[in-house]
């Protein structure tokens, strides 16, 4: 093992960590007495430089072989996802300039970057240990960031709720991980995939459920979504935007990876007739509840941030469909969906951020604060229109093709179209969702503002970000294939890197690479003895 090579493979993450430390040091040591605004600009500029460096490092890095049994894997898909995460972090940083929620700029930027590092590691691990550590590295800074607005009572309350529910789910996930480890004897995807099979044993399902909960919490899938509306509303808006976008991408990717690549033997089926137990029906249950609950409960919301939270729950439901399709096409559609969703959600939150600063209400913005926006700022309204229509899935915006692709992947995945009921439900709920999205647009374009409409104050960097994201959404909608091709199963790099492989091939691959992988388990007592299927695998391996 060559540590310099490892450092090379970790260079982007290392650059981001260094940037975080430099930003903190500069802010605390040099700019202590400087005005708040200057500190923010300097901190975000340092962030921008570091993030650009990391993005460049990612784009020039040659794909490296997996490190230490998949502790760290790098290929073109992870590189692209990391770049997206970095860009989203930068946008979140830019949105925070001049916001009044904190005096501690250096700490704020550092935490934002550290959380980003967590997400980057999460994207590139094939290993239970690094996955858990990265998940915690992602979450802990986000808990603190949520509480960053010390003036607002709701910020710390939201954070505490986020933290406690998050810890609860982390504990469940950890217990699930320990069971997976115990049942398989390994902590890498290949080891898990080789040994775990759906059988009569309930403890496998317990492990699956507990693992599932950990991710369901992260992606805000119902019924583990309860933190999301409170956190989106209570957290400072740039932080909420980052939770809704970056954290979603990383968690969904890991969610799909662990179930598709590590647990293919326990998939089961969610077909309308002839469902078999496994994680697929569990995910289907989550998806159904999320789609219905998210879209229905959003109708009754009065705060746009809460509304976006419920819409995020609904969107999580659609993305879960892609996961439960359990195919390469499903993985491609999932990535297209979450990346475009992340950009759209970030954009929508950016607009909300502007409005919130504009109204300065103690309880945050509400739907009526958007009244007459089209006359106050046509540009902002146009961008919001793009974001909202994309969330609603109107062609030719990116959101439409995201949904379209997921629906096709799901419909084609089940044997004899057994999953079509889920697709129909998804189409039905997305019709419902149109209702509350149009509520926002109605306020913006139809309802007159109270009193004389005054122009909204927009800063150049901020409006450039918003316009850029709106353009991205539009362009990805007009040319969806550019992004789809990056994630499509035909893309040789993805296949070579083995992002997703069919269960059987994973098995064969694992058997080739690790012929003795399960050998130590042979000595385990008790539990192991009771598993007939497991024994046959061991016998074969030996």
């Amino acid at each position, binding site marked *: 093992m060559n540590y310099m090579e490892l450092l090379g493979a970790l260079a982007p993450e290392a650059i981001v960590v260094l940037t975080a430390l430099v930003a903190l040091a500069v802010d605390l040591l040099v700019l202590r007495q400087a005005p708040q605004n200057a500190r923010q600009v300097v901190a975000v500029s340092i962030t921008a430089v570091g993030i650009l460096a990391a993005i460049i490092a990612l784009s020039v890095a040659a794909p490296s072989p997996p490190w230490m049994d998949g502790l760290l894997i790098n290929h073109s898909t992870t590189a692209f996802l990391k770049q997206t995460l970095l860009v989203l972090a930068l946008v979140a940083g830019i949105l925070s300039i001049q916001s009044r929620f904190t005096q501690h700029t250096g700490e704020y930027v550092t935490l934002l970057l550290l959380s980003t590092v967590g997400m980057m590691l999460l994207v590139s691990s094939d290993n*239970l*240990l690094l996955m*858990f*550590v990265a998940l*915690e590295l992602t979450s*802990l800074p986000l*808990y*603190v960031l949520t*509480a960053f607005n*010390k003036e607002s*009572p*709701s910020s*710390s*309350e*939201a*954070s*505490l*709720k986020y*933290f*406690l529910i998050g*810890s*609860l789910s*982390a*504990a*469940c996930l*950890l*217990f699930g*991980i*320990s*069971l997976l*480890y*115990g049942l398989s*004897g*390994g*902590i890498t995807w290949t080891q898990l995939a080789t040994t775990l099979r759906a059988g009569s044993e309930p403890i496998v399902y317990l492990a699956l459920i507990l693992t599932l909960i950990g991710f369901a919490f992260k992606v805000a899938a119902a019924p583990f979504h309860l933190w999301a*509306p*409170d956190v989106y*509303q*209570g957290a400072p808006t740039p932080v909420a935007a980052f939770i809704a976008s970056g954290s979603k991408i990383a968690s969904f990717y890991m969610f799909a990876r662990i179930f598709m690549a590590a647990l293919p033997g326990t998939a089961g089926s969610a077909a309308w007739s002839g469902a078999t137990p496994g994680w697929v029906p569990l995910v289907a249950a989550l998806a159904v509840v999320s789609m219905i609950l998210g879209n229905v409960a959003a109708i009754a919301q009065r705060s746009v941030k809460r509304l976006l939270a419920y819409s995020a729950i609904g969107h999580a439901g659609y993305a879960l469909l892609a996961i439960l399709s359990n195919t390469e096409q499903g993985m491609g559609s999932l990535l297209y969906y979450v990346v475009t969703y992340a950009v759209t959600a970030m954009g929508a939150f950016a607009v909300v951020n502007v409005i919130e600063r504009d109204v300065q209400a103690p309880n945050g913005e509400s739907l009526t604060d958007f009244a007459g926006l089209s006359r106050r700022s046509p540009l902002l309204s146009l961008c919001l229109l793009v974001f909202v229509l994309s969330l609603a899935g109107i062609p030719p915006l990116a959101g439409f093709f995201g949904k379209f692709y997921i629906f096709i992947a799901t419909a084609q995945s089940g044997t004899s179209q057994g999953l079509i009921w889920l697709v129909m439900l998804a189409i039905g709920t997305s019709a419902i969702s149109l209702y509350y999205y149009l509520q926002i647009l109605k306020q913006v374009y139809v309802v007159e503002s109270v009193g004389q409409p005054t122009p909204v104050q927009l800063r150049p960097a901020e409006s450039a970000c918003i316009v850029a994201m709106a353009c991205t959404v539009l362009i990805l909608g007009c040319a969806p294939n550019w992004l789809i091709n990056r994630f499509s199963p035909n893309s040789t790099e993805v296949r070579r890197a083995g992002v997703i492989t069919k269960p059987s091939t994973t098995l064969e691959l694992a058997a080739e690479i690790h012929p003795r992988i399960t050998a*130590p*388990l042979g*000595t*385990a*007592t*008790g*539990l192991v003895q009771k598993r007939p299927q497991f024994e046959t695998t061991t016998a074969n391996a030996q």
Partner: protein
Amino acid sequence: MITPTLQHYLVVSGLLFCLGLLGVLARRNLLVVYMSLELMLNAANLALVAFSHFNNQLNGQVMVFFIITVAAAEVAVGLALIVAIYRKRQTAHVEDLSSLKF
């Protein structure tokens, strides 16, 4: 004197986990809720160590070291949040934290 088997360890760990969960659900003081959460984490640690021992592998035990470290970080964050909320609201009770709802 019976030698403890894997099952014994797992049962204890499962009980600890359930106790922790019960504590989270039932206790009203934030600190106690938080301690219950730590209990749940340690239940998982116990299971990991047990599996590691009975599988004759070290990676489970290595994992536990990492988890303990992570848990320490979590303690720091959690306590800081509880302190922050106490300063703001002068309370550390769960039922007082419901200004964000519906």
